């Protein structure tokens, strides 16, 4: 059951091969049995999931159904869920229960999807290894001494381990694509503004974008069809028509122009990863695509730019967690200042505090021009690089990450080494472009992801490219040992 695609599950539910309650129970049982090895869920919905599965079964009986009716999914614990804990991986929100659903939660529920629970994540989505979570690290299903990537590490691990067919994630600098790559699943970050941010807890508002982690591009397309679209509650959401992503999956890709940025294949790229990526690109050539080298000259600046812009926004976005109205409050504050200082010092972990400090610094009087303003200018240059590239090619391909999954604890004392893991993913966030990570041939038994970046609102093209590749390869179907 757990190896079936969403299309197959939907067909089975319709034919009553099994009910949504049975399917949901199956996944809840897998979570119960297997997740102690992964720690991929922060909260499991249990009874609530079964109740919505029952409602889905009623709908299935009446025939009033969509492709997701009765399909279990998981949400990253960054999306607010009405009446159900939303922690954002932080002690600060350990007891927070939102009085509203995020738009994506609402839309997927309206489409009949059943929420199994909320997945683990780096605290406030700040991390590339899922080790900054207040709820402990998530392990990689392919090797439990290694990290799953982050910040959507719980979603990636849960999907890879078949604890849910698909999960939502968010991506600020690579937080969907990097864990998707490290866990061997398909992860898409749509164009900035494609999915509403309402009810999605903010890390860096100008970069944050919701997306999907699934085993295949086709599965991801089923979810994205429901998630994408304008939301009047989010001023930055795009009022651009949404194509049918499932419909576009089989489009022909012959003659498509693929650009390989030379900057993405230089020093720092693991040779095993490079070999797998080149093999995948050859596969695209066989499918009729035309390959050429391109240049994104400003891309080496993307990590430093990101580590100015993202902390700046986060320092302001996280100011609301002050111990006054909700969330963690320190014991026996002596006065207001003590309340602020201790609530935030005790409620936030080290990485979040580090970024708040950096962000506060770069926005300070006397430093603003040199850091924040300069970073915004370079951000524009990075976006311009892509604009020029898309005059020559239709999509850009390269590795999602420079290496495969690294051991737990390997980079926790070296933030810069950790940050460099996102060197290929960050630019798409800075430019606001859609990008997908597709599992290709593993290197030394560990998953490798191919990143495809498209022009604005070209999600259908990315899913189509990933699907055509998955049609002729089987890497995305491989299950990690012990989770088959």
């Amino acid at each position, binding site marked *: 059951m757990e190896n079936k695609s969403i299309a197959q599950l939907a067909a089975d539910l319709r034919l009553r091969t099994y009910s949504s309650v049975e399917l949901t129970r199956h996944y809840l049982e897998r979570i119960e049995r297997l997740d102690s090895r992964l720690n991929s869920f922060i909260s499991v919905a249990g009874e609530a999931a079964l109740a919505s599965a029952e409602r889905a079964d009623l709908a299935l009986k009446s025939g009033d159904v969509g492709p997701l009716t009765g399909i279990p999914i998981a949400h990253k614990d960054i999306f607010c869920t009405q009446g159900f804990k939303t922690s954002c991986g932080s002690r600060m929100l350990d007891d927070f229960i939102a009085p509203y659903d995020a738009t994506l939660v609402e839309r997927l529920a309206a489409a009949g999807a059943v929420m199994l629970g909320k997945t683990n994540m780096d605290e406030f989505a700040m991390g590339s290894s899922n080790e900054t979570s207040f709820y402990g690290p998530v392990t990689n299903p392919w090797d439990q001494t290694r990290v799953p990537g982050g910040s959507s590490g719980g979603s990636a691990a849960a999907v890879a381990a078949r604890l849910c067919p698909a999960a939502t994630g968010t991506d600020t600098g690579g937080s969907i694509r990097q864990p998707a790559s490290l866990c061997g699943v398909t992860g898409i970050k749509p164009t900035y503004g494609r999915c509403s941010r309402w009810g*999605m807890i903010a890390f860096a*508002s100008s970069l944050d974008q919701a997306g999907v982690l699934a085993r295949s591009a086709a599965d991801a397309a089923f979810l994205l069809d429901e998630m994408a679209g304008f939301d009047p509650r989010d001023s930055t959401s795009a009022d651009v028509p949404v194509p049918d992503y499932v419909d576009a999956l089989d489009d022909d890709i012959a003659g498509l122009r693929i650009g390989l940025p030379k900057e993405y294949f230089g020093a720092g790229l693991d040779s095993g990863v490079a070999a797998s990526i080149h093999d995948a690109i050859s596969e695209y050539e066989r499918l009729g695509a035309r390959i050429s080298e391109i240049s994104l000259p400003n891309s080496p600046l993307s990590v430093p730019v990101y580590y100015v812009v993202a902390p700046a926004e986060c320092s302001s976005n996280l100011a609301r967690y002050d111990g006054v109205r909700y969330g963690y409050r320190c014991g026996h504050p002596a006065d207001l200042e003590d309340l602020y200082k201790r609530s935030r010092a005790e409620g936030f972990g080290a990485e979040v505090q580090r970024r708040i400090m950096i962000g506060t610094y770069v926005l300070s009087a006397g430093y603003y021009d040199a850091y924040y303003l300069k970073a915004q200018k370079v951000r524009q240059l990075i976006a311009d690089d892509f604009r020029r590239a898309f005059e020559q090619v239709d999509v850009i391909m390269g590795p999602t990450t420079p290496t495969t999954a690294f051991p737990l604890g390997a980079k926790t004392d070296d933030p810069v080494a950790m940050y460099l893991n996102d060197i290929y993913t960050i630019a798409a966030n800075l430019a606001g472009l859609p990008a997908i990570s597709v599992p290709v041939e593993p290197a030394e038994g560990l998953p490798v992801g191919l990143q495809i970046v498209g022009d604005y609102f070209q999600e259908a093209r990315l899913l189509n490219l990933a699907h055509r590749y998955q049609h002729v390869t089987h890497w995305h179907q491989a299950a990690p040992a012990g989770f088959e």
Partner: protein
Amino acid sequence: MQWETVIGLEIHTQLATQSKIFSGAPTAFGAEPNTQACAIDLGLPGVLPVLNAEAVRLAVRFGRAIEAEIASRSVFARKNYFYPDLPKGYQISQYERPIVGRGKVEIVLDDGTIKRIGVTRAHLEEDAGKSLHDPGLVGDGQTGVDLNRAGTPLLEIVSEPDLRSPQEAVAYARKVHQLVRYIGISDGNMQEGSFRMDANVSIRPPGQEELGTRTEIKNLNSFRYLEKAIQFEVERQVELIESGGTLVQETRLYDAVKDETRGMRSKEEANDYRYFPDPDLLPLEIDAEFLATATSDLPELPDAKRERFHAEYGLSEYDASLLTTSRELADYFEAVARETGEPKLAANWIGGELMAALNKAEIEIGQSQVTARMLAGLIKRLQDGTISGKIAKQVFESMWSGEGDADQVIRSKGLEQITDSGAIEAMIDAIIAANPGQVEQYRAGKQKVFGFFVGQVMKASRGKANPQQVNEILERKLRA
């Protein structure tokens, strides 16, 4: 030593929208604490602001009214600081690119000259909540937070340092207050905090170009306090400098009870607000169509109205200025003038009896017991001779106390003027007969005694005898 005072004002005026600037929660004043604050106002995780178009429309109207440039593209920025009544830890405001650019406001100085005061900018922002310290409400030693006001739309209007005295500052503030109410963008209610002023005050030797060190007096909510606070602050600065001290740039608060300003925080202790563009809101774009729609129904502004009243109705500058203080008053005047065809008489009555009664009752023109139609009715009876001026005042008082319109009062009290010359003659004959001594005096050349006779006739007629006829007949009879 001589000093020149330099003042600039920042005025926060609450915009008259139904809902908040970034959420759908209502803005009504006086509700139970925290009953008018939604998830957005509370700054819960994951919520996002959506700009209220009505607030933009009102800001645009103001910009047009002060002949300012309206930015086709303005930017919302975050002003970051921690305070319990600031739920998000930042206030959404506009910083580098405000919606309203340079404009001007004209004030009339004591000597009658008109002075143009520059407006540097006006920008949209959200208000914060309130901290409650009332022990009865929140318990001893406790502070409560009421977020009803959080997210209320404000327009902050910043003037150039063009004001040279506390009186000029008040004249400017009153003018802005008049303007925002005229164009209907704010109720201007000062008790409810809809119009709050900060004054930047400095002094310098006359002729010096460079500005002196300034202090900022925060949160003044009456024109009287504005004047007194600036007065005090100027004197304090003069004394400090003349006694060899050094001024520090700081924020001060005015204590109305002690009539003094006190330091709140110095520049060194001041917050670094770390302004940056709010990534949750796109730049605000205003196109020609929005601009045209927002300003198409702008009413005649006070200055233009004053000019017109002067020219069209022949009113004095003083009357024209007085009657255009508010739109409601001006409309009232025009209704009376139109109905009676007697603008000067209308102006006199409104500026005299009516204003006195309103002031005494401490109410606004809109709440007046005597409507424009009623006052016009009274003036008509005065014009057609039904009643005399003296009786008219009596009729006005009766109308004010709710005894009906002029005709009803005149009828029920029998106040019609006596114009029957036979009746007046009879009264005069009786009075002449009863006062032979005074007749003697008059005929001996003592003109003043004439007034005595007029008084006697009016007394006998209970004020109703037509004064002109009384004069004529008296003169004739006394001369005989």
